[in-house]
């Protein structure tokens, strides 16, 4: 551990040390007159003009110390090269019975196990919430530890919160896959919306674009979940999203279906239902043109295309990201895929050596300066007999 200064030029503030020295120079009260009748027995001695004397040297020293500490604070002192611990054992949240695994692995009392969570809390504290970005925390831990520290990571079989690639660290990590408790249930991402298209003859052209989008949503090899029918046909069960491609207004069955919790997408030109909230733009392109607007109706939603479903009016139909955008509007943002099998996601070595983060001494120095200042004020405001600097 060595002390170093991030801004050595800050020490130029030490020139301010001259100021208390000037203030504390003994004043010219040396010529105090006194009546002395026995003068004939005093003999002349040369005046001690050469001696520089300072009044109240304890207060002077305290003020010099205070200014020196302030100059040091300006120079931003840090401690570099801190030696780290020998080994760190971290457990990713989600591991079942971590103490048992630690005991079996042979890690005794000398190493304190920690959770892989912000702040690296000790293992005896309650398990942190899941859903933390494990790969990011692992990279952060690798950057913070000193290069010689050994790192052991216990991961559950299914690892959540990972990056798109295997983490590349600067050291070799012992990757131990143990049994993990199932995580809290979250909606299975990736189920494409099941859509049903009700169209009449004039609007049949738009069906092919919706079918193409549905095919893009589903995994390869599966049938796209799109069905179609005439406007008068009843709505089949199990459908979340309904496309109404007709010039007529919504019939009552559709309206009731929507109010019960469905999502209906109207084509351009259909009257906006009265009980629905005013339409808000939901899909804007880069040039600011609105393609889809929507509002709430009961428990469901009503959306409406602003242009006819044909490429001449809606060139966005031919864009390559049209299916994703349509799905985003219908279902909301999907979480990016972040779950992997832990065995396949062991980090590799090869990352560059991190610059060691030096330990900033400024907060402690500021505290010390506050204490010294309080002491100086006490000393300076104490009662004195003479005029004090």
């Amino acid at each position, binding site marked *: 551990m060595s002390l170093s200064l991030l801004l050595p030029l800050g020490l130029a503030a030490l020139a301010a040390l001259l100021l208390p020295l000037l203030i504390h120079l003994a004043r010219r009260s040396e010529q*105090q007159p*006194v*009546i*002395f*009748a026995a003068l004939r*027995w005093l*003999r002349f*001695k040369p005046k001690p003009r050469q001696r520089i004397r300072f009044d109240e040297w304890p207060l002077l020293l305290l003020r010099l110390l205070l200014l020196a500490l302030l100059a040091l604070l300006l120079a931003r002192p840090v401690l570099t090269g801190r030696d780290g611990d020998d080994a760190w054992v971290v457990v990713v949240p989600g591991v079942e019975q971590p103490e048992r695994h630690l005991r079996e692995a042979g890690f005794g009392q000398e190493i304190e196990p920690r959770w892989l969570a912000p702040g690296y809390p000790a293992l005896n504290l309650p398990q942190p919430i899941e859903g933390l970005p494990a790969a990011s925390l692992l990279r952060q831990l690798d950057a913070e530890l000193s290069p010689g520290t050994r790192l052991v990571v216990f991961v559950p079989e299914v690892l959540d919160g990972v990056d798109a690639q295997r983490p590349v660290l600067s050291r070799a990590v012992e990757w131990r896959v143990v049994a993990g408790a199932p995580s809290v249930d979250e909606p299975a991402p990736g189920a494409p919306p099941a859509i049903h298209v009700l169209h009449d003859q004039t609007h049949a052209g738009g069906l092919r674009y919706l079918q193409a989008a549905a095919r893009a949503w589903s995994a390869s090899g599966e049938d796209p979940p799109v069905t179609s029918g005439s406007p008068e046909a009843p709505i089949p069960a199990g459908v979340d999203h309904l496309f109404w491609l007709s010039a007529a207004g919504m019939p009552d069955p559709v309206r009731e279906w929507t109010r019960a919790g469905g999502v209906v997408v109207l084509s351009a030109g259909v009257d906006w239902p009265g009980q629905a909230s005013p339409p808000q733009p939901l899909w804007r392109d880069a040039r600011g043109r609105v393609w889809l607007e929507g509002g709430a109706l009961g428990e469901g939603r009503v959306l409406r295309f602003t242009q006819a479903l044909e490429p001449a009016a809606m060139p966005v139909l031919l864009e390559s990201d049209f299916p994703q955008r349509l799905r985003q509007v219908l279902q909301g943002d999907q979480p990016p895929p972040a779950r992997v099998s832990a065995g396949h996601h062991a980090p590799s070595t090869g990352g560059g050596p991190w610059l060691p983060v030096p330990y900033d001494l400024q907060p402690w120095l500021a505290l010390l300066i506050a204490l010294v200042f309080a002491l100086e004020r006490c000393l300076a405001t104490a009662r004195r007999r003479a005029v004090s600097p």
Partner: protein
Amino acid sequence: MSTDLIPPEVRSRLAGLRLGARRALGGQGMGMHRSRNRGSGLEFAQYRGYEPGDEPRQIDWKLYARSDRLFVREAERESPVTVWILLDASASMAQRDLPSEATSSRLHAGKVLAACIAELALRQGDRFGFIGLQAQGLRVVPPGNGTRQRDQLLLSLHGLDAGGAFPHADRLGPIWERIGAGDIVIVISDWFDEAVIALAERLAAARREVLAIQLLTVAERDFPFDGGYRFHDPETGEELLGDGRALRDGFLQRFAEAQRGLRARLDGAGIRHCSHCLDQPLDQPLRALFGSAEAVARG
């Protein structure tokens, strides 16, 4: 007014003091001091042969039984003595110790001592007078006894201020005119000036009983000055700039030497003396001079 000048604790300690004379002789009248007057008294003076006309009860019959001749026993008559208080009122007497507000000057201490001596003389029935040695002229209070004389003395003390040099020898005439032989003279001064010492020596040589009380300040005894000062002599007007700490040792040595010389001179002249520093209680010089019974010694 006397209560203003003498502090109560000093007044209470005056009780045990007695103005006694060694060489001074009493004058006419009834007093407490020995004198050459013959009369009824307790002190034996001489045996004289019987002459016709002497009172028969003065015949000492024991001596007649031994020698078969008639002798008359004569006793002394105790008489009052005149006490003169001489107070130096030159500028050096105005010196105070620092801080100036908290201490009194030499002159004030001298006034208190003069008042105390007047009290003692009043109790003993002695006559007392006062001479203030001012540069512009002596302030004389002719001797008398009684409380009226004491009040006159206090009035004179009240208006006395220190200033100027010691009065020139030409102005000291009233001293020689008024102070008769056989009087007690108490000189209160700082005794720095040669003129005072010469006056005391001349008085002592002229058969007056002289007592010297020297008043010194703490500054002269200890020299407590630290740091730079401008020392100013009030009588000669000399000034000296110096650092206190550097001057201390030399001053104390020379001053002690000068005091030894002074004491030698006073002893040589037969003058009883005592030195008083202003931070001591004020009855200390009086006790030194008049306190114990041994002080009232037969000369």
